[in-house]
């Protein structure tokens, strides 16, 4: 292999790496993809929801053979305190469309499928191979990589770093820094298996219909974070995650938080009788627009989680990963067609294309929100106030309605005061704009 030269080397076989390698290989480029796991997906963890649009732009007929779990017909948003939740549910028959918009997936089989398509498109994929460093020429241009296989350099016109949030190569090469504890969340997750009839009965589903629940509140013990519960065909993915800086400043354990979430009186019945078959953890880049590193340079590009491409507010990540992988590939293909070298100047087109896409537009829109979410009242005071208000409103106990309204209003003003309430609302509004 040492004598071979590739058009492109893609580091990592997650959604961004696969999207990039597939797009390059289908257009005839000679692609090498390196993956440190035993098989593609063996190191990857996600909730996981697949947003069809991003994949459809890469593999239009993916629904024919991709391992999809359930298409989502109902979204629940829960604000939780210790004993209650106050929620919004949206369910629509419109989501039972010919080409559904969102699916739950299980990452290991999904990544294996995607990787098989990459391989069929003609890319060479080497698993159990960890990239140890980038190789540069005398002009500091990246011209290849070294791996832990035999230490020999492998050369390519361009190296695409799709190495994920905890990727070492880019950080060691000084292309980006290690994420800061307040820009990255740690999420833990379990897979709970149940007969599919049980899942369908519990969640009011037919066939491959699915429900997802996103939740926030006292379940994170005052830390900035959220919990989730997604229905798959024969199992439920349940997890919870918080900013790492919040974890380090508390005495909470991630698994203790997950256990308490599972024991919540609104969650426990949904999991009753299930068999747990896996416990996983992963970091989620949550720093948003301001945490995005330099994305291109002489002979290299960064895609996916390694570039902090996660929209934490909308719980979107793998679609941004696939889209950045595709756009990186299209940039490379364009330069190849024009016989233009893979220099920083030429590769700046990648950033321009990203800026014009929903990826950067969405992240830019919420560039101030990560700060707003450092307000701990969002995860403690408000869930409790809202729960109390709902209970006051719905409990029929001989107290007149006007008095109930006054009691609810007073509880808000008593707890947060006018200044606090205004500040919280303005903080969120500013971030949202």
């Amino acid at each position, binding site marked *: 292999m040492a004598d071979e030269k590739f058009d492109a080397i893609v580091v990592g076989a997650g959604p961004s790496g696969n999207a990039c390698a597939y797009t390059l290989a289908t257009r005839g480029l000679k692609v090498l993809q390196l993956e440190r796991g*035993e098989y593609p997906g063996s190191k990857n963890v996600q909730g996981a929801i697949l947003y069809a649009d991003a994949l459809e732009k890469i593999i239009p007929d993916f629904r024919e053979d991709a391992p999809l779990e359930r298409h989502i017909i109902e979204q629940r948003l829960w604000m939780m305190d*210790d004993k209650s939740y106050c929620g919004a549910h949206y369910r629509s028959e419109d989501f039972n469309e010919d080409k559904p918009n969102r699916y739950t997936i299980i990452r290991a089989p999904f990544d294996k499928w995607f990787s098989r398509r990459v391989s069929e498109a003609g890319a060479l994929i080497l*698993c159990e191979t960890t990239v140890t460093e980038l190789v540069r020429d005398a002009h500091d241009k990246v011209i290849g990589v070294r791996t832990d296989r035999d230490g020999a350099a492998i050369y390519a016109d361009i190296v695409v770093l799709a190495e994920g949030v905890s990727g070492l190569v880019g950080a060691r090469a000084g292309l980006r820094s290690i994420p800061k504890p307040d820009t990255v969340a740690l999420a833990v997750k*379990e897979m709970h298996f149940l007969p599919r009839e049980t899942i369908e009965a519990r969640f009011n589903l037919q066939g491959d219909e699915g429900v997802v629940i996103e939740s926030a509140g006292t379940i994170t013990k005052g830390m900035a974070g959220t919990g989730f519960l997604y229905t798959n065909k024969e199992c439920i993915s349940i997890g919870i995650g918080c900013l790492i800086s919040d974890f380090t400043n508390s005495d909470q354990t991630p*698994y*203790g938080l997950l256990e308490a979430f599972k024991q919540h009186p609104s969650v426990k019945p949904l999991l009753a009788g299930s068999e747990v*078959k*896996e416990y996983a953890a992963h*970091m989620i880049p949550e720093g948003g627009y301001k945490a995005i590193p330099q994305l291109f340079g002489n002979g290299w590009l960064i895609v996916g989680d390694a570039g902090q491409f996660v929209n934490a507010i909308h719980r979107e990540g793998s679609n941004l990963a696939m889209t950045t992988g595709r756009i990186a590939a299209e940039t490379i293909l364009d330069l190849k067609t024009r016989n233009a070298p893979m220099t920083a100047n030429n590769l700046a087109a990648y950033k321009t294309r990203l800026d014009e896409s929903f990826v950067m537009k969405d992240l830019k829109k919420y560039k101030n929100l990560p700060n707003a979410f450092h307000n701990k009242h969002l995860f403690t005071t408000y869930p409790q106030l809202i729960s109390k208000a709902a209970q006051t409103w719905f409990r029929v106990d001989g107290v007149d309605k006007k008095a109930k309204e006054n009691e609810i209003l007073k509880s808000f003003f008593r707890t947060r005061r006018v200044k606090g309430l205004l500040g919280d609302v303005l903080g969120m509004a500013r971030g949202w704009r």
Partner: protein
Amino acid sequence: MSTETETNVRVEDKLFQNRYLVDAGRPHITVTPHTVPSPRLLALTHVCPAGCYTQADSGQVEISTDGCVECGTCRVVAEPYGEITWNYPRGGFGVLFKFG
């Protein structure tokens, strides 16, 4: 509810569900020798989702990487301060997620 539940959680029971290919004798993370652990090292004893970090009777923080789920959290917390060295396991070794 929560405090009782949390103290009863044994992370070992959770890790028991997972598949690992342990690279015996070649830990991919090491703790830098120290006499008094920093607040960051102490935080790792509860932040690590696999409970890999423990405080020995001597007060120092130790690591056993066998159950590591390779999330990178300890790297984010402690590597910039030189308090740990962090690498991936060799290609193919480490945790092997069946579902992910």
